[in-house]
């Protein structure tokens, strides 16, 4: 019950401090600009006799790049919402006043996580689907699995949010946010190394990269978002032409992440959240 109170407090804070409105404004601006760009490209292409199929293929790849931008924005948002969630309250003394009440420290961590996860998921789904609908409106192209793609984007953000929250129980907010962003970038690069390394049969590189993907599953989930946006025709043609080499493209996914990986990601979130609870519980305030 106290966790729900803190979750509600967290959501209220995001709205009262205008964070939600700023994110919403930036998202609308991004959607408008990218949609305008796609509209110009499609209009120009059609003026030069480009076929509908070519427009769909081009738009699908642009949409994946736009999704990549959104995944980056979401990662930053998750990191910079999660990083101060506990640390700033501890530094200011706000947390001490609340934790002197008859609540558990886990209520603070779980409450913070619930509130932030709700905001991040809502933001990911809303911004992702809005972008898809807007681009579909001007180009006529709609990806095959928009909800799956937006869901994976949201899941990736939740992973980073949870990791930032863990760091926030021990580190100052700025340090926690910076570490989270760097590891997000490294995770993405590890994913690229893994697929390229597999193509070149670089065993140790692939093993290390795969291990990092399981240690921080953000990049694996990003691959799921790409898969949800990739038209089956592109998958078929790309695999037919490039074969296994197609997998080396960091913006291409021929298959969704394995079920066990998705399940592991959920377990990973629970484990990291548990570690955050233990970390705060063992800390002197």
């Amino acid at each position, binding site marked *: 019950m106290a966790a729900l*109170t803190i979750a509600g*407090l967290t959501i209220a*804070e995001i709205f009262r401090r205008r964070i939600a409105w700023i994110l919403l404004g930036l998202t609308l601006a991004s959607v408008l600009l990218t949609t305008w760009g796609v509209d110009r490209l499609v209009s120009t292409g059609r003026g030069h006799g480009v076929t509908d199929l070519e427009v769909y293929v081009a738009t699908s790849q642009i949409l994946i790049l736009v999704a990549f931008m959104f995944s980056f924005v979401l990662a930053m948002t998750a990191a910079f919402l999660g990083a101060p969630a506990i640390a700033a309250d501890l530094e200011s*003394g706000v947390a*001490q*006043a609340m934790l*002197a009440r*008859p609540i558990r420290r886990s209520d603070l961590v779980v409450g913070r996580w619930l509130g932030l996860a709700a905001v991040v998921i809502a933001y990911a789904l809303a911004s992702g689907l809005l972008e898809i609908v807007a681009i579909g409106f001007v180009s006529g192209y709609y990806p095959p699995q928009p909800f799956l793609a937006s869901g994976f984007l949201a899941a990736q953000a939740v992973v980073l949010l949870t990791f930032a929250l863990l760091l926030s129980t021990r580190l100052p907010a700025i340090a926690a946010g910076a570490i989270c962003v760097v590891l997000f970038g490294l995770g993405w690069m590890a994913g690229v190394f893994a697929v390229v390394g597999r193509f070149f049969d670089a065993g140790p590189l692939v093993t290390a990269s795969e291990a990092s993907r399981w240690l921080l599953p953000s990049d694996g989930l990003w691959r799921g978002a790409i898969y949800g946006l990739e038209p089956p025709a592109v998958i078929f043609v790309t695999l037919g032409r490039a074969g296994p080499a197609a997998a080396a493209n960091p913006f291409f996914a021929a298959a969704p992440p394995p079920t066990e990986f998705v399940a592991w990601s959920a377990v990973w979130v629970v484990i990291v959240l548990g570690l955050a609870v233990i970390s705060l519980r063992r800390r*002197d305030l």
Partner: protein
Amino acid sequence: MIIDTQGLAKRYGRTDALVDLTMRVEPGEVFGFLGPNGAGKTTAVKLLLGLARPSGGGGSVLDAPLGDRVARRRVGYLPELFRYQPWLRAREVLELHARLAGGLDRSPAALDPILDEVGLLDRAADAVGGFSKGMQQRLGLGVALLGSPALVILDEPTSALDPVGRADVRAIIRRARDAGTTVFLNSHLLTEVERVCDRVAIVDRGRVLASGRLDDLLGEGSVRIRASDLPNDARAGLARFGRLAPTDDDGWLSIAGVQPDAIPDVVAAIVAAGGRVHAVDPGRATLEDRYFELITGRAEATGETPG
């Protein structure tokens, strides 16, 4: 017993914040916890509330182990760092803490008297971020008083207040005590403690140097009276109030060992014997005298200057 600690200790790395805290706080009293900066006062409060874990010793609060979650339902706390969500309104801060305290009444009928008590009723709808430090401290005091707790722990409750605010806080503490609340007052302001506390403990460098009732700590009182026309036999009769010293050249009569509440009786006896009283000067060691005596004595014993 409201608070009972035995040999409570806390070590941060290689620093002993609290060495051997043994104290008892009785129900319904205002207990002053006095000491210089860095004496371990806030550390002791954090141990009592379970915000930090003791390195040694133990104790109880409201007959439950230190930090017990259920016992904390009946404890109000004003932290030394009194910070509340700046984006919340004053009333919302109280509502939040009423929820966290386990479902206390959050209606205006319950919260308005508290806001009024701490002088913030007309600012109840204002965001805390726009409050001065003093107003935030008043709000913190209101948060601590929510739900009429059995124990209120106030950590330096007047540090941001002006003299009027300090007087208000003293009045609030007295009213809380009269309502049956035990108050644990953590402070380095001697006059504040002296004015409201029933018992005090003086701590320095994590150790209790002295504790007890204020009267006991301050030692025996005395009185100097400037009187005239006092017959010699009546003068001798005043010896029953204490140790009588000869009248000095200015006509001052000194009696040592007089308790403060016996001073009116001394004056009445002089008047009844035909004497005329021109001035009365109750003399007593102040808490400040005693405090410096203890802190300086300890510093000299350890070869350091008092901090």
